């Protein structure tokens, strides 16, 4: 550290060595200890200027702002947890194709199977017993027509 570099750094970072880059702070402190008076005079003047700048301090943030921001933070209920159920487009194509073929085959098999005891279409009676309302009137008319 020489006088020229010291003055250069002081012009940028001010007199407080704590603000200076880590890698030069030690050398700068050692240099200042033995620096000529002209350097120490400039350092004192910069120190006063630093104090003036730092009068402009942070004031506490308003409670209203703090509350508003905290209330906008996500909470557990809004954050999805656990593994996501894979969507259709996440499934590999071969697996999707297989599933489609299997469901078609099952659909055909069920469709062609004839029930052993067909259920009589007495829907109107069932609806009337359970209080079917307008639906039962409609279905009664349908049943009478069929008979």
């Amino acid at each position: 550290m020489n006088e020229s570099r010291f003055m250069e750094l002081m012009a940028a970072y001010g007199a407080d060595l704590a603000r200076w880059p880590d890698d030069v702070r030690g050398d700068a402190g050692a240099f200042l200890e033995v620096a000529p008076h002209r350097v120490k005079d400039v350092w004192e003047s910069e120190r006063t200027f630093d104090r003036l700048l730092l009068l402009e301090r942070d004031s506490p943030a308003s409670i209203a702002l703090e509350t508003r921001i905290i209330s906008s933070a996500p909470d557990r209920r809004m954050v999805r947890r656990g593994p996501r159920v894979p969507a259709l487009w996440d499934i590999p194509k071969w697996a999707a194709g297989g599933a489609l073929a299997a469901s078609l085959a099952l659909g055909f098999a069920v469709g062609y199977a004839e029930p052993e005891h067909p259920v009589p279409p007495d829907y109107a009676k069932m609806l009337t017993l359970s209080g079917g309302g307008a639906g039962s009137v409609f279905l009664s008319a349908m049943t009478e027509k069929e008979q």
Partner: protein
Amino acid sequence: MRDPDEELVRRVGAGDKRAASELVRRHLPRMVGLGRRMLGDAAEAEDVAQEVFLRVWKHAATWKPGQAKFETWMHRVAMNLCLDRLRRAGRNGGEVSPEFEDGRASATRALDDRQRRERVRDALMLLPERQRAALVLCYYQDRTNIEAAEILGVTVEALESLLSRARRTLKTELAAERADLLSGLEAG
């Protein structure tokens, strides 16, 4: 060195409201301070701070520690929001109070701390935005030179140049009342 916000951010990402409150209390004053010094307007500074935290909520769950410190990232977001606002509004800084103009022209009267603070604040607003940004980050936000350079997207050498010019400009701006401004300080 471990990021002091890492654990808090992880909890915020998991929807922990208490962690969110702590993060807000830890960083809100600095975010508002940065906005106020860059924009010269308290309401705009609050808007910027709120916007910064909305982005924190959005990115907390996917934040990956190990790159920049979380606080540095927050400063970068805040600084970019301020610079965007300044550019959109086509202004370099905020309004300088009429008292400042009067004060520069005359006045050899005793100044209290509040008046000194206002003069310094007004002088800051007269700086070009890059110089002001460098000074705000290094002096008021306590960023290291490397962090400040990273936030501004410049080299450390360029940052030092901005800082030197900012201090020089401020000294010139405050030169007329330097004696008044400094008298109480030197005594104290």
